[in-house]
């Protein structure tokens, strides 16, 4: 019993220019909305992929990151004695005691300093991280002042190329290898022997422990035992969870910033849609009167104009999402505000983001269209036909 949808559709086509301009306004808002979600999704995706699903990270209770954490040598031995830890090919536990510090290094070219993570690694550190691969040179020899640099870092910071030297912790360090770690945060780190680095930085404690579970379903039991042990003051997290938690604050900040911006912009776009729809109603008063005289109900008129406005919103939404999809080609390098290290990630367009963006555009269309549509539906037939 409704006015055909093609009626609404063709009216939009008939006034091409206003449709185009109004939809463009909405498209821009949807673009910002989608880009924000893509940014936070990309960030979290990168961070989650940094972790392996059966790895467990041990840090000091209350510490959010390895940088803030400290685990004493004695405590690491207690953790190492847990029977659930997987055994490596060499017969020893697949576990790494690691130390993390932040240092300042000058960038190539600009000479501007930026924070870089230095990670002291153990014998199993590489084995525990399948996404990290040595692509050039060799691993540092234990007990030596040798380091390897992440791929995304080595090109951008002075002294981080293979064969070059870096000075920190009052010592000279020689770069003997380059490793690649996909899109993960390790790509921007420098790795060296943990004990050498602890000496150089005069740190008596490790930052974290990483081990692999032989059976990941045992995690809850291990966590309960470790966190309940009165000799330990540690927290155990599965590695993906650990990185996700790290990104939470930044993702939340980005989301709030982006959504605040979009809401402000969307007011403008919605008012634009409202003006367009008011004009559409005003131009078609006698048409409305005719349709009502023929026998269409008020609700049909309401539906036709509301549909027209929703369609207008959807056109803007599709255009905005289409434009935003190209953002996937961009890789952003930024500061990880939790560890103050460099972090490279891409915009990631998920089906959820597509649906939310289109939903958002429909909401703008609805809010912009509902009052004009109500006005159209409430007109008296005789007045409309005059």
């Amino acid at each position, binding site marked *: *019993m409704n*006015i055909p949808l093609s009626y609404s559709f063709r009216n939009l086509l008939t006034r091409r220019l206003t449709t185009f301009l109004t939809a463009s306004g909405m498209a821009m808002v949807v673009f910002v909305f989608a880009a924000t979600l893509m940014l936070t999704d990309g960030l979290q995706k990168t961070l989650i992929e940094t972790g392996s699903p059966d790895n467990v990270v041990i840090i000091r209770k209350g510490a959010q990151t390895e940088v803030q954490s400290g685990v004493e040598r004695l405590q690491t031995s207690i953790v190492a004695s847990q029977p659930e830890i997987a055994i490596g090919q060499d017969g020893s536990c697949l576990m790494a005691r690691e130390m993390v510090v932040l240092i300042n290094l000058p960038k190539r070219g600009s000479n501007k300093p930026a924070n870089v993570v230095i990670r002291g690694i153990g014998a199993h550190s590489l084995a525990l991280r399948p996404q990290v691969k040595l692509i050039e040179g060799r691993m540092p020899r234990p007990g030596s002042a040798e380091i390897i640099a992440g791929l995304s870092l080595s090109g951008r910071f002075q002294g981080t190329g293979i064969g070059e030297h870096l000075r920190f912790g009052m010592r000279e360090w020689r770069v003997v290898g380059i490793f690649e770690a996909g899109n993960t945060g390790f790509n921007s780190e420098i790795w060296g022997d943990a004990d050498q680095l602890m000496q150089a930085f005069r740190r008596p404690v490790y930052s974290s422990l990483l081990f692999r579970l032989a059976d990941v379903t045992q995690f809850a039991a291990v966590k309960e035992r470790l966190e309940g042990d009165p000799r330990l003051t540690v927290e155990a997290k599965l590695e993906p969870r650990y990185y996700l938690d790290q990104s939470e604050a930044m993702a939340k900040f980005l989301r709030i910033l982006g959504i605040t911006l979009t809401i402000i912009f969307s007011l403008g776009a919605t008012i634009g849609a409202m003006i367009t729809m008011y004009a559409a109603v005003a131009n078609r008063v006698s*048409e409305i009167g*005719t349709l*009502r005289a023929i*026998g269409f*109900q008020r609700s049909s008129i309401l539906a036709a104009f509301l549909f027209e406005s929703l369609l207008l919103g959807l056109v803007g939404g599709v255009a905005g999402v289409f434009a935003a999809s190209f953002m996937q080609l961009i890789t952003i390098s930024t500061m990880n505000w939790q560890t103050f290290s460099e972090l490279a990630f891409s915009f990631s367009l998920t089906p959820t983001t597509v649906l939310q963006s289109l939903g958002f555009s429909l909401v703008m269309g609805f809010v912009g269209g509902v009052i004009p549509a109500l006005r159209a539906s409430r007109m008296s037939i*005789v007045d409309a036909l005059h």
Partner: protein
Amino acid sequence: MTVEREMEVRLKDVCKSYQRGSQQVPVLEKISFEIARGEFLALMGPSGSGKSTLLNLLAGIDKVDSGTITIGGCEITTLGDSELADWRAASVGFIFQFYNLIPVLTAYENIELPLLLTCLSRRERREHVLAALEVVNLTDRMDHRPSQLSGGQQQRVAIARAIITDPAILVADEPTGDLDRVSAGEILNLMDHLVRESGKTIIMVTHDPRAAEKAHIVRHLEKGILLES
């Protein structure tokens, strides 16, 4: 009793006034008359005498202040807004001075519009529309938009739209008012044909004496009062 049953339209003591500013302006005062089924009635009178108002009342798009209107046995003055819309869809065909076609729809789609309010299938609707196009002799123009048609052709499309649901009454407010002599003649012949061949009851408001000639009955309205015929 048989006479009463044949009466298609009955108005009794219909009054209507409009609010203008703070005062009530009476437009129709105690109008009572009847129109038999299959009648072609022309309503004449000076501008502002209330002709359109009367037509709107008996077409169910305006409400009386008092009095009753009964059409085809249905007392429409008791109907609510939504019931009235359904009643119009089934029982009235409208022909306007300026055709009032929907500009974005083709001739075919304009004619089909009232059928969307019925439960006919797409195929049945097509049969009806093609038949109506045949009646108004516009089959070759069915895919044209109103802007691609002449005034006379547009009014023929409007007539096809008015008769498509086979309503008992047709109301026409100055249907030839915007047309040249030739087109006006065609429209009047078409209306005459509808009365004689399809038994429609037509109430037509007009200024045009030639239009009035086609009607069976001419009634005059002056200052809201129906003159004795």
